[in-house]
């Protein structure tokens, strides 16, 4: 394989691995937005919280990875449920801007708490796959990246089945389409919305636990929210398959921009894509077009 092609395939694999994480975060944000019309800016901080908790349990308490994963996921899920049930639910009916401000406030509080409890230093921990790698068709792939990709696609598939086949999933879809109609049909909309928050919290926890070993456990990880927003916009707002596609595309674009474009473009590529998409094609790749209501 020629060096240029090898570089390209290496970048592609890395891009899909990073993009899978973006996709997971993006799915969490889309879930909440579809159900409650709140754009959750605190999602990245739930992710930071789960990364730090996992670090404390693995590196600090010496617990095995397979025990920590469900434990942290459940804990963050319950926290997210509580956040909606106690705080966010109160602003239902107010303009969208109130939701933005409230989730930013929650994000600040979570970030402050994480800094107070775990300190501000960067940390790291090992997973069962840290350090290993395999060669597939001449491209070196870290084991961890493979696991991440598998986990993300598994979660996406599970979510798809959940929303198509289970009563709870269909009730969630109904509530997100028309809350009043769902309520009149006996769906407990409030509890359902909190459950959606819990579900999104679990995806954030999984994303955090898998992302942290790739980079470092750091409060700056919350910035991934912004990358995920770019992914959501690119994929089309409010579409779960779009979020996955957008996440992977953003991951790829970032990797390619880092090598094929001048210095400095890697950090802003995602945001340039976001601006361009919103100006040129606000519905994104897979979003449904709808008219303006007066």
């Amino acid at each position, binding site marked *: 394989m020629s060096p240029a092609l090898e570089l390209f395939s290496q970048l592609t694999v890395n891009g899909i691995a990073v993009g899978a994480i973006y996709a997971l975060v993006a799915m969490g944000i889309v879930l909440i937005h579809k159900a409650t019309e709140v754009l959750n800016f605190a999602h990245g901080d739930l992710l930071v919280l789960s990364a730090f908790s996992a670090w404390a349990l693995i590196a600090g308490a010496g617990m095995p990875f397979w025990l920590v994963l469900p434990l942290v996921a459940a804990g963050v899920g319950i926290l997210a449920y509580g956040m909606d049930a106690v705080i966010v639910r109160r602003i239902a009916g107010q*303009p969208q801007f109130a939701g933005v*401000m*409230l989730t*930013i406030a929650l994000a*600040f509080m979570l970030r402050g708490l994480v800094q*107070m409890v775990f300190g501000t230093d960067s940390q790291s921990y090992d997973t069962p796959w840290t350090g290993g790698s395999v060669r597939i068709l001449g491209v070196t792939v870290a084991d961890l990246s493979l696991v991440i990709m598998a986990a993300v696609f598994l979660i996406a598939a599970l979510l798809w089945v959940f929303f198509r086949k289970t009563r709870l999933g269909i009730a969630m879809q109904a509530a997100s389409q028309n809350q009043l109609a769902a309520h009149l049909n006996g769906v407990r909309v409030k509890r359902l919305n909190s459950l959606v928050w819990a579900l999104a919290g679990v995806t954030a926890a999984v994303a955090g636990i898998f992302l942290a070993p790739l980079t470092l456990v750091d409060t700056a990880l919350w910035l991934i929210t912004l990358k995920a*927003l*770019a992914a959501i916009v690119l994929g089309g707002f409010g579409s779960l398959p779009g979020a996955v596609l957008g996440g992977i595309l953003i991951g790829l674009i970032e990797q390619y921009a880092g090598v094929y474009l001048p210095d400095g473009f890697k950090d802003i590529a995602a945001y340039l894509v976001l601006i361009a998409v919103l100006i040129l094609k*606000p519905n994104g790749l897979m979003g449904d077009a709808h008219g303006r209501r007066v």
Partner: protein
Amino acid sequence: MRFDYHTRYRQGFALLKHPADWVNYGVLLAALLVVPLVSSNYFVGELSYVLILCVASLGLMMLSGFTGQISLGHASFVAIGAYGHAWLLAQGVPFILALPLAALISAGAGLLAGIPAIRVSGLYLAMVTLAFSIVVEQVIGMWRGVTGGFMGMLVETPSIAGISLGSPKVFYYLCLLILVLVLLALANLLRSGIGRAFTGVRDSEAAAYALGIEVKRVKVGAFGLSAGITGLAGALMAHHIGYLTPDAFTLLLSLDLVLMVVIGGMGSLRGAILGAVLISMLPNAVALLKDVLPQSMARQSGLEIFVAGAVLAFFVLFEPTGLNGRWLKIRALLENFPLYRRDTFRRQKAYMKSERNR
């Protein structure tokens, strides 16, 4: 209790509604003029910073509070104003010219950033402005020739006609002058036709359009004007900081500005000022709080950001009209004292209204 009994047509759109207001604001201005004469240089320096933040907050209030366009990236306009001003000064442009030119540069950038507002609104606009500010921060870091990159850039000491403005007390008067000018300009603008067009676009785009308001032009113009005012604040900020680096104008500054506007109360100039004062005092309040808390909690660095978040959450949940709304309620209580009805300001029952299809 005060009754509005208009005997002349002009009273309906007077700058200040009651003669007593002229006295109140006059006393406030006089107090602000006297402060530097009786306090330390450090305190005056801090106070000028508050005034600068007031100007920036007014800029954002004009856009978010009066025109209804959300911007989560106003720190970029502060940065553009600051760097533009510092660069112009370094090129030998006199201070008195550099200041309005910096505001113009920032306004130009604002017009550019406002173009997406034609096509998108609400959450999408919030995201565009957020992305814009990150891009601007990165560009400032990379553009070494003009901005000094991540190494930073020294700001020259300002002077007007040979008189140095370097001393904190003189600089304080400059900030106060600019704040008063901006405030007067905005108060007058908002009761003119243009200001009414801004409010019209905020309340109903369709209705504004039907009344012959050029919605697109108003939106982009509002962005430009807001960016210009914020850039003016940035130019003053450059002198306050003295040495510019890109990390002085991060996302956190943008969010601080939004915090000021929301906590102050959307859609009121008084709110912008109150919010800026409260937010700039927050770090000092937290420092006081740390003295009370046990040692182990006080050491941690996350307390400030936690308190900022808690204050914001408190206002969104319990007082959506902000400090200004609370002030109006207290004033009504005092004025009508025995006759005050609790339901006067009671919020109407709100029903879920989808903004999905806007």
